């Protein structure tokens, strides 16, 4: 399948990711049927927050030659690696993990967006 002929926009991809989030929550609720909806929802949200959303923005660098399916899946080990490594070192430097859980994902996202913008600008020039 040639991804470049069916290149969805970022907005469309975000819509698809939102649907995937909802479907993941439903799937988790089906599998863990004895669990409360609140716990299922918070677990799904936390997993997306840490392992999918940051990785999605990091792997946007490959948007031109990878499908969303591929980037969605590979974003997880990429997120896990980046988060795990930075969390370890930031902890050694004194930033508590309690704070890291909330600020690391947006920092990774912002750095990724910044790098993409810089790349775009350098391509234009």
């Amino acid at each position: 399948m040639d991804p470049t002929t069916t290149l969805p926009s970022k907005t469309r991809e975000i819509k698809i990711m939102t649907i995937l989030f909802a479907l993941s929550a439903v799937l988790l609720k089906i599998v863990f049927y004895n669990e409360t909806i609140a716990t299922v929802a918070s677990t799904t949200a936390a997993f997306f927050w840490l392992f999918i959303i940051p990785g999605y923005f990091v792997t946007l660098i490959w948007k031109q030659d990878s499908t969303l399916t591929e980037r969605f899946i590979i974003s997880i080990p990429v997120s896990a690696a980046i988060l795990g490594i930075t969390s370890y070192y930031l902890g050694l430097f004194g930033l508590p993990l309690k704070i890291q859980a909330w600020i690391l994902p947006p920092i990774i996202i912002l750095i990724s967006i910044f790098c993409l913008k810089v790349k775009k600008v350098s391509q234009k020039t």
Partner: protein
Amino acid sequence: MAIVRIKETTVEAAFLLIFVGIMLWIGIADTWGHKIQHPFPYSYLASDTFQHQTRAQWIKDAGNYRYEAPYYSAGLTDVVGFYPPILNHLSVLLSYSSGLEVYDTILFLTVLFTIIGMLILYIILREWNINIALLSLPLTTYIFTILETRRAFLWGHWSALLGDFFFVAIAWILFNFEKKYSAIFLGILLSATILGHTAATVFALLFIIVFTVTSLITHRFNLVHLKGIIIALIITLAVSAYFLILFKQSWMIIYPFTFTIETDWNSGGGLVQLKHFGTITLIIMALGFRTLLFSRQPVFNHEEEKGKFFQKLFVIFSLIAGLTNYVGFTIRAFNFRFYWPITLAPLFGIALYTHLKSFCEKTKLIGTAILSLLIMMLLIKINYQPTDAINGLMNQYTWQTLAWIRDNTPHDSKPLFFYGEAYDQDGSLGNTHRINARTEIDELKKTLEKGALERNYSVKYLIEAGAGLPYKKGQLSYGLHSVENNITNKKMADLCNFNYYIFDTWGKNPQLVKLNNIIRRNLTGHNFTKVFENKLNIVLKNPTPGGACFGPNNNITL
């Protein structure tokens, strides 16, 4: 065409969702009673599981991993955090983000990452042939049905599983090395193996070398790609230098690598062998292997050629890597074998596709997807033993007692655990957050035979001294407490010199329960007070540690 493409995407997405659901069901949901949140560490079947859990909990409590917890480090406060940190950190981050306890997130993540590992293999194969990708996935169910791999999850080989997960991700990066900035991602993922499970780095590096050399010889790689590999290695060294220096001066001294042939692994829960796949599955895999190596089918495009080349390399490497215990890679080869149901899955898909090609082509994607699901369900029906919820070694009463000690006793108090079913795999006792000791079942049985309990008695302390208890000597140099100070966890102790005494009131060995009761009555006769009780445990407090708590001959006659 656009409508057909959309439908195929939907079919694929639906298939993958169902697949993930099935894997979660057999991988963790059954043993967890189909709940995510539990009142205590659930389905933990060995001490190692608690070792990881208590370490992750310590990191959460401390907010960082500068040091190990004193309460499992012989009371030392300067032991630097020496265990590969990634899994623990991710578990803590997920705990904070989700509200779940660390003892749930750590096992949940291990299972979830394994399932993602299956999906990573899928996207590697998908680029080659989506039908082979779909038909390969049923073999991955074996990771949750082979007893020895199942034990990897329930006995605590979590770091090894994480290392294997990053190995598969590295395979994807190499397969897609022409993508921009792949060198950076390769460097990050290789660093993740060092900080996740350092033994996995050896296999990852070997695969990178084999892949690079083969690609250079077959002109798939040029100097630009080679430059990328070198950049990746430089990034890896830069990112992991701190931990590698610590690793070299701690783990590599306590466990220097020697080429030793290992053919058994009882202490680890057994080793995965090819025969565990069953005869019919093995025959299918063998057919796939023959097709992969010797097929003379024409190759029509670059993707197909690239896919075939990579799969030959990946599968042969995975098979040989898992067998390197026979050439001296010791139990590390067995760690790699945990992922055989994933890394050897292409053989299954290739064999099925070769013989069902016309069916796949006639029924399009939906036919192959349904066939794959049916084969999956068949393999699960044959191989999977459904379980009720498995508590594991912990139970609500012991957990309550450990929590009571943690929350209600002075930080420097010393608990002593007598006979209890949960205590032999003593990693769980770290949850008291105290330097605790326990009596061992074998010693208690000898005591029963002797007919008398001596005041001076052999006890075992919980000391996680895996890497020798390293401490900082200089900026980048470390000493080892366990070597320099001869720290051992088993020693003779004065049974009257502890602060709190914990007794189980029932267990599988009625003789030892009776012994508990005799000791408890004796201590109560020496003014020990009951400070906590539940349906399983009684906790006594010693009013004068070091004072008299035994009879005039310093023993208790049984």
